């Protein structure tokens, strides 16, 4: 079991995220420092945290794929994505692990909406998520309540798939469409998500527009071909 933590300019949160993870679960982890321009790399070195250093910024998809390639090369059977900004609660890791092992599904997504949680997102964000839910349902026939959640676990078949090909930016929704199209089984479990513990979200209003359009286009392409 490998926990992959992609980190780009997360100097404010990376230390606590890794320490929390070490405290709460026994699994191996790897931080993928995605060409951070701040002190993220120094903090990882200072604390001796297990990490990979990408010499330039590849984006979340490139960083995650590096983690999947690492998982594949080192023979891990499962890989979990955990955000470096502290939004994902490591206490929920066990829920994801148990679910994927017992259900035999290929991907299990930690969802804020499959059951009631304490999550309070903005109306705009919720509408965006709802839009992607319907998009995935109409294009691929899968019912996913939280397709933008990055908190997810995959098995070795999917690790192999992702190590070979993974979208560079905004990968969450697109990979669901791709896996659904290829017949992989996906399910969700309830998780709690915290507010960002520090740093800034990379999504601006202009980027949101690009995000919605790009993800719609790529998801439809993946679902159809």
């Amino acid at each position, binding site marked *: 079991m490998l926990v992959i933590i992609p980190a780009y300019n997360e100097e404010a949160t990376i230390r606590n995220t890794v320490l929390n993870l070490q405290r709460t679960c026994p699994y191996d982890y790897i931080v*993928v420092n995605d060409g951070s321009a701040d002190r993220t790399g120094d903090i990882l070195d200072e604390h001796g945290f297990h*990490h*990979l*250093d*990408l*010499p*330039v910024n*590849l984006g979340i998809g*490139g960083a995650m*794929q*590096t983690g999947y*390639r*690492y998982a594949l*090369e080192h023979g891990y059977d499962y890989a979990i994505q955990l955000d470096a900004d502290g939004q994902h609660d490591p206490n929920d890791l066990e829920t994801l692990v148990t679910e994927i092992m017992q259900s035999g599904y290929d991907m299990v997504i930690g969802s804020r909406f499959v059951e009631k949680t304490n999550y309070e997102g903005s109306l705009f964000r919720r509408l965006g998520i709802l839009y992607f839910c319907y998009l995935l349902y109409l294009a691929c026939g899968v019912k996913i309540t939280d397709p933008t959640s990055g908190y997810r676990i995959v098995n070795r078949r999917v690790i192999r798939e992702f190590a070979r090909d993974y979208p*560079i930016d905004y990968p969450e929704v697109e990979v669901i469409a791709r896996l659904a199209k290829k017949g992989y089984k996906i399910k969700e479990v309830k998780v709690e998500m915290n507010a960002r513990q520090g740093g800034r979200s990379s999504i601006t209003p202009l980027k949101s527009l690009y995000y919605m359009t790009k993800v719609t286009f790529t998801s439809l392409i993946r679902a159809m071909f």
Partner: protein
Amino acid sequence: MGSVQWITILLASLFFIQVIYYSTRNQLRDKQAFLWFSLSIIGLLIAFGLKPLNRFAAMLGIAYMPTLIFAIAFLVILNVLMYQSIILSHHEEKIKTLIQQMALMKHEWQHNERKGEKHERK
């Protein structure tokens, strides 16, 4: 030959020389050099063959021949841009793979170095 044709031939020749110049200086290579070489030859052929082109345009019912040339040129340029984007995407993918491989190898190397240090201390 009218002055329009002379100007067209001059411009097409300048473009041809430009392509040859970049190719000889290795700034255009292999497939890219061949692509632009082919396009510059087509440009020259069009410049020399304005009369047959006029007849061809008339055959198609196009009264003003340059319209035909612009339409074809537009399609060719669109396709060249598409081709360049495909090449760019391939290169992006290759660079990404190289960067990832570098990070994985660096990690492996540091890991082995640490193991070696521990072994020496024992």
